[in-house]
């Protein structure tokens, strides 16, 4: 493969992977394997490295691709393996024990308590970080 095609393939993988991840967030298998985009960045950086090695005359596109994909690899790896990690602090939740009760207001402004549902129906509590 020529250097030019390697550069194109490298950039397509590097830019396509995060876009595909974002588009497929609803698919649990994709969402729960965020290391996939880190692997894609590594593949893209390797291809850019080959492009640099193969380049005969015009070398800057290959070097540019290598620089860009290396940055994405470092940034992506840091984000996934460091930035997005949640500290494993002890929780108050024990399977088989009563869930702590609480009262909050819902989106319509009505109060909602966990105790409201006792004897009525099971509850799935989803704690999420908010909608940014």
């Amino acid at each position, binding site marked *: 493969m020529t250097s030019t095609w390697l550069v194109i393939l490298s950039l397509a993988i590097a830019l396509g992977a995060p876009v595909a991840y974002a588009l497929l967030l609803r698919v649990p298998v994709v969402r729960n394997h965020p290391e996939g985009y880190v692997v894609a960045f590594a593949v893209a950086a390797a291809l850019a490295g080959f492009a640099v090695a193969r380049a005969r005359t015009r070398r800057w596109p290959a070097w540019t691709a290598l620089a860009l994909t290396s940055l994405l690899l470092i940034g992506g790896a840091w984000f996934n393996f460091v930035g997005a990690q949640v500290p494993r602090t002890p929780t108050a939740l024990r399977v088989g024990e*009563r869930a702590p009760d609480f009262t909050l207001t819902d989106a319509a402004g009505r109060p909602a308590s966990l105790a409201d549902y006792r004897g009525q129906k099971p509850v799935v509590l989803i704690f999420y970080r908010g909608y940014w």
Partner: protein
Amino acid sequence: MAELQGLGAALSEAERAGVEILAVSPDPNERSQKLADGLRLGYRFLSDRDLAVARRYGLVHPRGGPSGEDVPRPATVVVDRDGVVRWVSISSNFQVRPDPTEVLRAVRAL
């Protein structure tokens, strides 16, 4: 908010009627209402502005937010009719959420 959509889609209509899904976040009510309107899932969105409930549950990620504020740790808890915790999933990477089919299995096992 993809994880919120997944669970709603996985539940049948009868199951939706038989279980309450409470989505708890520090978002203000207006924002949650906008999200609720957009998703049309029938969840109750509860506003835990000061993380009081997240704190009581031990689900706070200190300085984990984009501007260094405390945020909840993403977690899903299945509570049975008697108020007893039956299933818990707490993410160790905030990009990762339980697979809706796992949550569904826990709900169906009640």
